[in-house]
């Protein structure tokens, strides 16, 4: 049992203090010690992006960063997106455009897409595909994820947006 180190950082706007071994990975600290189970573990090799968090304004895969590296940083996870019962535009977009199925990759996807829209508010499809290439999804085939991000981008720019899957499209009396 290695000696533990105290680490303080800001998690979704609140200061947290944790005691961790130097080797402890941020994803385990978040999930096992801080009860933030939104970021998921999918590969442990930085490939799948299910554990993506936003750290000091950058997307970081929390399965390959040590918690001790996070001293005095600002960490944003999926749990920090909805405010006062209001969904973030990305969360709404994913729901309206059916950008998720099993939901396992979704927290990482939304967190990554948030960083994309912070940097490029009006991305092209090519830019979305390039930016999202570090986040794997096995269910959706990405097409609706791209639509969801486009939906959110339009909404964040103040446009009126509607789902491309209207409720009654195939229903007739």
């Amino acid at each position, binding site marked *: *049992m290695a000696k533990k180190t105290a680490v303080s950082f800001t998690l979704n706007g609140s200061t947290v203090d944790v005691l961790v071994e130097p*080797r*402890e990975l941020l994803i*385990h600290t978040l999930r*096992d010690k801080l*009860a*933030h*189970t*939104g*970021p*998921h*573990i*999918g*590969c*442990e*090799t930085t*490939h*799948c992006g*299910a554990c993506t968090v936003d750290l000091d304004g950058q997307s970081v895969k929390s399965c390959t960063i040590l918690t001790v590296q996070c001293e005095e940083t600002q960490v944003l996870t*999926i*749990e920090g*997106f*909805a405010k006062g019962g209001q*969904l973030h535009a990305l*969360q709404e977009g*994913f*729901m309206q455009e*059916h950008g*998720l*199925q*099993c*939901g*396992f*990759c*979704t*927290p990482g996807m939304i967190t990554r897409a948030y960083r994309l829209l912070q940097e490029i508010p009006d991305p092209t499809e090519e830019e*979305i*595909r390039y930016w*999202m*290439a*570090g*986040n*794997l999804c*096995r*269910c*959706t*085939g*990405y*097409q609706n*994820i*791209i639509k969801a991000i486009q939906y959110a981008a339009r909404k964040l720019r103040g446009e009126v947006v509607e*789902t491309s*899957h*209207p*409720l*009654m*499209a*195939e*229903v007739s*009396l």
Partner: protein
Amino acid sequence: MNEITPDLSRLERLEGIGCSRKRREDPRFIQGRGTYVDDIHLPGMLFGVMVRSPYAHARIISIDTSKAKAHPGVHAVLTAEDLKPLKLHWMPTLAGDVQAVLADGKVVFQNQEVAFVVADDRYVAADAAELVEVEYEELPAIVDPHKAMDADATVIREDLAGKDVGAHGARRHANHIFNWQIGDKDRTDRAFENAAVTVKQDMLYPRVHPCPLETCGCVASYDAIRGDLTVWITSQAPHVVRTVVGLLSSIPESKIRIVSPDIGGGFGNKVGVYPGYVTAIVASIVLGRPVKWIESRNENLTTTAFARDYWMTGELAADTDGRIKAMRVNVLADHGAFDACADPTKWPAGMFHVCTGSYDIPNAHVSVDGVYTNKFPGGVSYRCSFRVTEAVYIIERMIDVLAQKLGIDKAEIRLRNFITKDKFPYHSALGLDYDSGDYEPALRKVMKAVDYDGLRAEQAAKRADPNCPTLMGIGITTFTEIVGAGPSKSCDILGIGMFDSCEIRVHPDGSAIARMGTISQGQGHQTTYAQIIASEAGIAASLINVEEGDTSTAPYGLGTYGSRSTPVAGAAIARASHKIREKARKIAAHLLEVSPDDMEFDLDQFRVKGDPARAKTMKEIAWAAYNNVPEGMEMGLEAVDYYDPPNFTFPFGAYLTVLDIQKRTGEIKVRRFYALDDCGTRINPMIIEGQIHGGLTEGFAVAFGQELPYDEQGNVLGGTLMDYFLPTTMETPHWETDFTVTPSPHHPIGAKGVAESPHVGSIPCFSNAVVDAFAHLGVTHTGMPHNSYRTWQQLRALNIAG
């Protein structure tokens, strides 16, 4: 916007079958509030880690666990010796074989489970696992299934010594599992002898892995005071797991609760019972504390449930017009070291005999030999219904081989051989009864949508131009799937018929709880099941709470795999809804003082025939069910239905893809993919489209990159996402979807199931397109995966590459 008729607004409020209803599951997932198995933390919970074999085949000389046990924070280290007194060192597989829970005397595949370390947390457990000392004596490994039955082949399964009859009949060799045959061999052989044209092609469907984004895992919690065992587990079949755990542990099923929480994708990977589940349960019982076991991605890719690995030889006999007279298939199936195929018990090759496809083939014969090799067990249905992927692959490849031999267009040869609409229900040469189909309009619709003639003209022009930098390939598949297992007369698992179930309770306020024996892994059951009830029982979907996956509350069902949720559970839901509706009819008639025969059902109410102003809504009826029912009727409004399907369902599709191969590099770009699916009645078009996108992407992955290769020593070379291809946004093509609707005649709402079709149908479509690009150069087949390197080698062999 037209003025909405009152009925349309009522229909909209109902959100029934045919609506693109937004998913009820989404709010928790988009906010990171799902409950996947690794999200479960119980007080006093310990963590288990497997010690695994570095060798593919070796005798275990000794295991020394003393250092590991002495490590601070370690609570137990289990080996086969510890499980022996409990008779738990071996467990039954779904295929009638047995599998070592922890290696018993020898290891038979790389990464096999040897010991189980239980410690305070995952870090301590990993440290202690390093301290377990195992001494091995390496044995020669069998990697090539063709050598498994050689006279001098090393024996993999010494535990089967002297057993010359296995679960599926005679064994010819110590490494032989079964030979399975179906069809009339003599008639088929005669048809080949008399045929004008015959073609033959060898092909390998490589070993792949379903690789859901969430790995397998469980949390086992035994309460010694109450004698109750609760296991949260990422299982596609929680009730089956409960029965297996009961059989293994001798704990009565009434004391076992299996909970499938949210599941991060299954794709066939989460049907079986894996050693980690057994050891976690044993550890929890022994230690009296909850034990969590979550496999790593490497463990997932190298130990739990491979798919495919079929070495197939296909033959077709035809007349000179390309009309197929007979089909012959021989398969060598590499099952790994334990036969753990997830098939219905009686079918060692699953539903492979759907391999006559969408074509009216009068004679057919199939022979499959299963063999043991030093690879990890599996043979699961990776987004497929029990070897249907392999079946569709061989017929869709073979019909192209025949077309090339005869110089007939690849769409035309399909049109000439389709089972025509008037022949349904169709009895196939291999004994299946196709429920319904209408193949020609589907293919014609696709050909029109993509301007097929224009594409062929473009291809001809490019072939004629030696300076064209690309080869253009057009791939077509017109496949038929068999899903919805299955009729219990022919399908069971461990003796339990493959029915499914639904229980609906309508509350006094008109809202309802509905529970099923299936479990969603992303399919959106909470959303779509409520839509079926809405249409069939007249209760608004928004008022229905759908619950699955907890065996202590859900009715017994066989689970979700093989696209069986809609065909089987969906039918049970419809029938339970109808029972509710019929009771509601009687209550409404009683309230309005008319005969039940004078009532008619209208969306969400019963009204008096000829006097529509006199009506009772389902909400009013629900309230009355708890205080004012006809004389002699039981109070309450609930129904249970166990549905044993009379037949499978047979969804079908017509797919077309266009791709360009760079002559210089072998890089392949999918230019267009057009997928038309017919799954009968469509419940939620948005969800269907999403599932088709996903299945096509998984098909793309298999066709262009996924494989689990082995070296000669039996080392698996695809064990992490660095080596195993999962497509990203950058590679994945754009998908176009379309549909026709041919309802199933035997299903209460005519629905067939869809989510596997895109995977099953797209893989041969891609292969057909790649081969088609080379067809004018005499190529009849190239093996998967069609990655750039292999394609470049093909170009080099033909002196085309730069």
